[in-house]
């Protein structure tokens, strides 16, 4: 059962030149107790994805599709899948119909005014490709109505003293909740235009208390004019009714947990070393016993030895607390130390996902191969490392077809025209590349 599931998520930023497609159709689900690594270069959308899950996005971010389902007990998933499937079939039919209508329309002439009708159809099509909770709900209208009737009927039976009705009622209510897409955090806070409300009681109950985040650059995330201890106490008291003494005791425990001497609680951030600041940030993230912790580049600005120690610490916490973790980094090797699964992101998409071992031993995406080949190592024979030619694309006007094709040495004509589908050569391993199946059968990436 996933603890958190991201479906078809699209986060676009509105800027003068248009939309920055920071996260563009990401699917990701994380099981409880699992550690997932999110790897990619700067600007690939990994931090935006993390901020979308915690809803800490800047005000020009628009959610233009998808869901973030937060359902800690995971009871609704079997039903969810069922209703997603029903809705998806209907949506697919509508997409086909829309496409047919678009195809039937006369081609717009060069330089002519944009056709309003055509634009509206295209927009509708785009929305259907990445459905929101509202979309799903509207496509499940008959089911929802039937279930509501069933609930009412069962409730009436219960009043009359029917025995089996109670048991059945719980199940039907769960089905109804699943059909209504309950549990989608985005549905609660999303405004009509796709921007998110800053405050909602349902979100506040989840944010930090259940999903917390260790921000990138601990040195800048702590307030320099308050003691570190006070900042953690504040985080605790914002979410829990607790006396100052109790909260302070909690901070002491947290300090012992992450390995900072407890006599440093009343120090200011500038009195801490870089490693200690990072540990304090981790302590703050753990302060409310969250179920999911997102760590955004937890070791990037740290020295090598300190970084290794922090990673050891994270591994130890993971073992003792059985935490569910998302670790974001640009360095595959760092993430592979702790993660069970690794997702590689490029230009707003997850281009490859597999177990931490397979990502090295059975790479299926050319970008992942390039990323792995770009790091020098201290072990083994010294070999020439290769860079990936070019640079990451603009997310305002991403390349047509496969977004990696301008930099890919295996690219063929199809890559420039057709966006690749996910290839799943074995369970748990997917790759967004036209030729991944070939790479899989050949056992290596080669040009055919």
């Amino acid at each position, binding site marked *: 059962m996933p603890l958190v599931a991201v479906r078809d998520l699209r986060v676009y930023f509105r800027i003068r030149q248009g939309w920055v497609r920071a996260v563009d159709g990401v699917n990701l689900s994380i099981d409880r107790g699992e550690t997932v690594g999110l790897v990619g270069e700067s600007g690939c959308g990994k931090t935006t994805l993390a901020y979308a899950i915690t809803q800490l996005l800047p005000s020009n971010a628009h959610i233009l599709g998808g869901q973030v389902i937060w359902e800690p007990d995971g009871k609704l998933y079997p039903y969810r899948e069922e209703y997603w499937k029903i809705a998806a079939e209907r949506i697919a039919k509508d997409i086909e119909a829309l496409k047919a209508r678009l195809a039937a329309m006369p081609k717009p002439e060069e330089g002519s005014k944009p056709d309003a009708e055509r634009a509206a159809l295209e927009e509708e099509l785009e929305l259907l490709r990445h459905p929101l909770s509202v979309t799903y709900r509207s496509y499940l209208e008959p089911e929802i109505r039937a279930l509501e009737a069933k609930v009412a009927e069962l409730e009436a039976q219960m009043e009359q003293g029917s025995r089996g009705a109670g048991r059945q009622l719980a199940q039907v209510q769960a089905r109804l909740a699943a059909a209504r897409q309950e549990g989608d955090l985005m549905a609660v806070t999303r405004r009509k235009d796709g921007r998110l409300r800053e405050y909602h009681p349902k979100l506040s109950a989840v944010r930090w208390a259940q999903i917390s985040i260790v921000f990138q650059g601990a040195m800048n995330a702590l307030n320099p004019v308050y003691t570190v201890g006070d900042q953690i106490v504040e985080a605790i008291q914002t979410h829990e009714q607790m006396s100052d003494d109790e909260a302070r005791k909690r901070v002491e425990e947290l300090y012992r947990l992450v390995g900072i001497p407890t006599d440093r609680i009343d120090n200011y951030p500038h009195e801490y070393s870089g490693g200690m600041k990072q540990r304090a940030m981790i302590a703050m993230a753990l302060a409310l016993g969250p179920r999911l912790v997102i760590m955004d580049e937890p070791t990037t600005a740290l020295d090598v030895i300190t970084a290794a120690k922090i990673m050891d610490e994270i591994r130890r*916490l993971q073992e003792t607390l059985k935490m569910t973790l998302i670790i974001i980094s640009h360095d595959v090797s760092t993430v592979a130390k702790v993660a069970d699964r690794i997702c590689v992101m490029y230009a707003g998409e997850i281009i490859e996902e597999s177990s931490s071992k397979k990502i090295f031993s059975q790479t299926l995406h050319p970008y992942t191969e390039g990323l792995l080949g770009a790091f020098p190592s201290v072990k083994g024979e010294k070999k020439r490392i290769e860079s*990936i030619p070019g640079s990451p694309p603009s997310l305002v006007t991403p390349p047509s077809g496969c977004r990696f094709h301008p930099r890919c040495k295996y690219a063929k004509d199809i890559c420039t025209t057709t966006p690749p589908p996910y290839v799943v050569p074995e369970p748990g391993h997917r790759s967004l590349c036209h030729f991944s199946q070939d790479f899989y059968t050949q056992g290596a990436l080669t040009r055919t």
Partner: protein
Amino acid sequence: MYVHAVDGVSFNLMQGEILGLVGESGCGKTTTGRLISRLETPTEGFILFEGADIASLTAREMFDFRRDLQMIFQDPYESLNPRFSVLRAVSEPLLIHGIANGREQRAELVIHALEDAGLRPGQDFLDRFPHEMSGGQRQRVAIARALVLNPKVIIADEPVSMLDVSIRAGVMNLMLDLRDKYRIPYVFITHDIAVARYMSDRIAVMYLGRIVESGPTEEVVSRPTHPYTRALLLAVPVPDPEHTYTQVPIKGELPSPIDLPSGCRFRTRCLLAQDICKTTAPPNVEVSPGHTAECHFAQDIYEGRLVEPPMPEQSVVEDIAQKLFASHGPPAK
């Protein structure tokens, strides 16, 4: 009070050689680089460039010396003036040193340098501004600016650490190719020993202002002798899923460079420290030709007679964890 940023450092740089200066932040590697280029004045000691001490150069000689020594800085966003076009940024050194007559000749030299730095065709880049280029391209402009004067030495201070992974390799390969082409020696300053291994012929590891170990790169990486180098090498993540990590054999945190430990500077963090380390500064032991380490036990470590004891087990925190997480329901899973 004095900060002993660089304290008794000696090394040579040969023609066509790349020396990797490795260490954590605050170890004095950047200060060393700045001393060589006389951006900092040494309190004591010599820096000999082609036999002349650069500390005693007259203003005129200094000016000429700076032409022979160029620097590449860490962050191309900051080291390039945002209001200068590439042409202006790269021709600035030519103007200062009065090389090349007239606009056309300067542009020619600039294009040549840009193309050497991998920006081809150079013509296309002349009118661009820093914000119109990617990080890798910007760093290549910084490299071109260093190259345009045909320097005799280049000091590169963390030239790739701000660059994205996929671009980093290209800049490193470019620097290696340029060395092969022009035989320019580099002092390559980096915190990443894996990068240093890739780039340099010799490595010098710095800790608290001293070079604690130096030697031919492969020798140092395969047979690290100073306990600090050994810790540094074990801390580097390895791109191999089968690799088993051990606890990094180092304790505590970096001491203040104002109040240095007596005897050996590393003793407060060393797992092999003995009484002698507290009282006597270690000698610089040559364990094999050209490979030296500043440690009382260097020979024993080098020959494998002495290894670090395992790190003490971390204290158990399970009960604290359970208590903390019990108030919010059981931990997941």
